[in-house]
């Protein structure tokens, strides 16, 4: 079990390009679709918590999933697994390859990798919202929230507005409290 946990998170660390969001796709495939270690709902909830707490999302994911599989030792093993590829690769680059990004074949490959990563992230988000809609008791509310937030975040990203994702999630938390106060949770029985 511990070895599988280590291997899985090592693989996740090795193929995470372009920040935490690229990793989300690989974690979903490895830990939800293949191994069923966590549910979709749990997974998206962890992302929300990961975004609102400090540190890299990959570490949050590894700690949570590792703990769920094998308590403290599982959390430690998964976290070591996810950071080990970084340590090895970056150590070698920092030590021996000073103009790493100027090597032509590498910069060419990264151009393609970046395009692939953006497509993978879009595909994962599409599948997550599709599953969310399937299990939602209030599809109208889920879809409206999703559409509005996509537009807001796109606006923020493309026009370099200085609002962090933490603030965005905070606004959703406040909104959920308002909806609970006016009794929407009872009316629709969302679970």
């Amino acid at each position, binding site marked *: 079990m511990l070895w599988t946990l280590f291997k899985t998170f090592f693989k996740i660390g090795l193929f995470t390009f372009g920040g935490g969001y690229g990793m*989300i796709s690989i974690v979903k495939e490895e830990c939800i679709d293949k191994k069923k270690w966590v549910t979709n709902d749990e997974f998206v909830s962890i992302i929300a*918590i990961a975004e609102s707490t400090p540190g890299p999302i990959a570490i949050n994911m590894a700690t949570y999933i590792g703990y769920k599989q094998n308590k403290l030792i599982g959390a430690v093993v998964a976290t070591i697994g996810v950071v080990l590829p970084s340590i090895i690769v970056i150590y070698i680059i920092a*030590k021996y390859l000073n103009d790493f990004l100027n090597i032509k074949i590498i910069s060419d490959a990264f151009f393609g990798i*970046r395009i692939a990563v953006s497509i993978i992230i879009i595909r*994962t988000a599409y599948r997550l*919202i599709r599953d969310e809609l399937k299990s939602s008791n209030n599809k109208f509310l889920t879809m409206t929230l999703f559409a*509005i937030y996509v537009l807001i*975040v796109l606006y923020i990203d*493309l026009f370099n507005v200085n609002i962090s994702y*933490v603030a965005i999630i905070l606004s959703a938390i406040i909104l959920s409290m308002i909806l609970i106060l006016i009794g929407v949770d009872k009316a629709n029985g969302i679970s």
Partner: protein
Amino acid sequence: MVFLKLFLNFLIVGAFSFGGAYSAIPLVKDVTERFDMISAESIADFVAIAESTPGPVGVNLATFVGTKVSGLPGALIATLAEILPAFVIMLLFSIYFRDVLQNRKFRFALSVIRPCVVAIIMAVGISLFIDNTELYIAINTKSIGENLIKGLIISILLIVIMKLYDYIAKKRLSAISLIVFGAIFGIAINNLI
């Protein structure tokens, strides 16, 4: 003493970089200014390398600065300090999450927060695509850049492969395979066109 200094500095980075790697970059910049052996110009290189190599950007930055300051021990200490706050917070959360989840109001709140989180993922994917293909620049200058054409060709190739695999093998092409195909197409297109 340099180890303690490295540890404390990256502990602060780990504890204050909210919401992904991009908030870690300015904090790491502050850290490097406290170590004499790192020049200001090399920070931009650090970030470029940390973003394009595998692994979380924050961890990559910590390993990089740690290695430059004092070799492998430095790399390990800086990385440990960087991940420690996230690890501890998530551990506490993992222990108590199941209990909190029993609460119906909390479950409702999560059902409102989740579409927002998935929306962030979707928007990040779209804006990364726009950045990488320089689509935004193309719209503003009303001229089609070389990277836009190359990027679109790679995207079309990737989507065709995805659909073909889906059709023939009756299952989804994994994210990792798509990354490998992306690298191959990137090399091919930059050397053939």
